[in-house]
């Protein structure tokens, strides 16, 4: 029987939702969770509910702040102790940075950012996008264990019928050794919204916004919806939005529940980055804009007229 470890990150009092999405696919398998530092009771309850057996809180010097080397050394200690067959993590900034390093330490393989997977017979087989989602491929890992997998947030969804696990918490003392790269400062981003890659709703603007100033009308709608604001490459390259807002093949690949594209024509590289959104709304003056081929609900109209109306309508119903 395969033994699975899920590396998890805290977000306030809870762990990131992607951890529960992963645990929800492990029904019937032995799945433990690792976090660095302490875990609030609320997070512990969530993990147990979704089937976590043992929850390891890693503690030691050099772990107050994230570092690839320190966190990797800590995880490696745990992996060696318990002989895990698979190590999963969310495909977050940290997961994407950390897991390849641990995989390297184990001389093992890793599947990046899968959007679905099975564990039939205890063996992993995943599906992942290539070319930012222009096509999909099956991914399998071979060679030395454990095998490593990162999973795209929001892609699996939460499984409500998971069997609860014991949720036994233990502290694990780890030694990281000297670090060659350390964080000396963290500068918070201006936005307190969820990142595009984790957002449930995204309101995105294109070149038709015409200025950075005009993005305000998207901010207003986003505030009503609790959404994060994104942008097309054209808008970013024109200086209307910052690069961390860019959705597409050379920006972020996103999978929200609702994606509202405002004044975005739908270049092939943009469509690649947002096509797995569950529901897409597009607003564009050009009825032949390619974005309408991907839209569940298309509005042929001027975003400067439509967006404020939408904002008012959302206010009424939310």
């Amino acid at each position, binding site marked *: 029987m395969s033994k699975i470890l899920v590396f998890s990150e805290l977000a306030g009092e809870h762990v990131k939702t992607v951890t529960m999405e992963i645990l929800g696919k492990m029904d019937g398998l032995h799945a433990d969770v690792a976090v660095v530092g302490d875990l609030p009771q609320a997070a512990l309850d969530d993990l147990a509910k979704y089937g976590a057996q043992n929850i390891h809180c890693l503690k030691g010097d050099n772990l107050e702040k994230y570092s690839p080397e320190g966190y990797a050394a800590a995880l490696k200690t745990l992996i060696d102790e318990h002989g895990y067959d698979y190590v999963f993590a969310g495909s977050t900034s940290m997961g994407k940075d950390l897991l*390849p390093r641990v995989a390297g330490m184990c001389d093992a393989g890793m599947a990046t950012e899968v959007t679905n997977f099975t564990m039939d017979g205890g063996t992993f087989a995943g599906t992942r996008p290539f070319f930012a989602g222009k*096509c999909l491929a099956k991914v399998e*890992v071979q060679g030395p264990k454990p095998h490593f997998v990162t999973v795209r947030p929001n892609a699996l969804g939460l499984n409500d019928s998971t069997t609860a696990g014991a949720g036994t918490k233990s502290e694990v003392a780890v030694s990281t050794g000297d670090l060659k*790269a350390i964080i000396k400062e963290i500068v918070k*981003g201006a936005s307190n919204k969820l990142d595009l890659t984790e957002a449930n709703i995204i309101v995105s603007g294109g070149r038709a916004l015409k200025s950075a100033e005009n993005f305000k009308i998207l901010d207003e709608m986003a505030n009503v919806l609790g959404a994060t604001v994104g942008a097309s490459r054209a808008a970013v390259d024109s200086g209307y939005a910052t690069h961390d807002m860019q959705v597409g093949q050379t920006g972020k690949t996103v999978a929200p529940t609702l994606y509202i594209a405002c004044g975005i024509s739908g270049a092939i590289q943009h469509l690649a980055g947002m096509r797995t959104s569950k529901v897409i*709304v597009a607003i564009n003056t050009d009825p032949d804009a390619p974005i309408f081929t991907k839209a569940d609900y298309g509005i042929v109209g001027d975003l400067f007229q*439509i967006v404020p109306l939408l904002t008012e309508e959302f206010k009424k119903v939310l």
Partner: protein
Amino acid sequence: MNIFVCVKQVPDTETKVVPTGDGSYIETNSIKWILNPYDEFAVEQALQVKAANSGSTITVVRVGGVKDTEALRTAMAMGADEAILIEAGDNVDSYMTAKAIKGAIEKSGKNPDLILTGKQAIDDDCLQVPQLLAQMLGMPSVSVVVGFEQDGDGYVLKREIEGGTIEVYSANSPAVVACNKGLNTPRYPSLPGIIKAKRKPMEKWTLSDVGVADSDRRVNYSNFQLPPEKPPGKKFEAMDEGVQASVVSEVVNLLRTEAKVI
């Protein structure tokens, strides 16, 4: 300084991807190959570091198919001094790639002071090679870098994470630095640069020359296919101000009752 830049050659972002009949990869015959866009930031950073440290050499390393040498020629036209091409298939995995780059750096006889890469390749989007390579070479790595400064013997690096938050790292040299858009503005190759690039040295090695065997494969990809097409959606005409309010009201209602997303 010995600066290495690891680059990948990828299909242009406007490429219409077509899986092969057997699903083993995509059709590559009529693809326009380009230097991976994120690698342009790595090449530009290398050129800026070289300008600030006289006597530096920039070596560009690429692992991959050999139908075209566009990526390496572009990097050299931008100003890199020499190139190493490790001939491999289009579908080598990240572990093999990192191991091949490590082997190539060692075979070159140069001790790296700095290794620059793009934050990810836009074909497989794996984001593994920089960290794997750093681990294999015993170096620190910092990824998604949007700020770069030399600081004595080391580097101060800004890494972008969720929500535009920046982690500021202090890293020892040598280090692996994976560059993101926003780090710098890559220069365009000049015409004399393009001509000079044709005469710059390019080593060609095989995977076995740099110590990589078939048994190093860790990940298998198969069954390449297009994503399922969505059924056509509903489209509303709302150029006319008279109908806008009712269209908007209907769409919001559909989002609540039909799509159930708000």
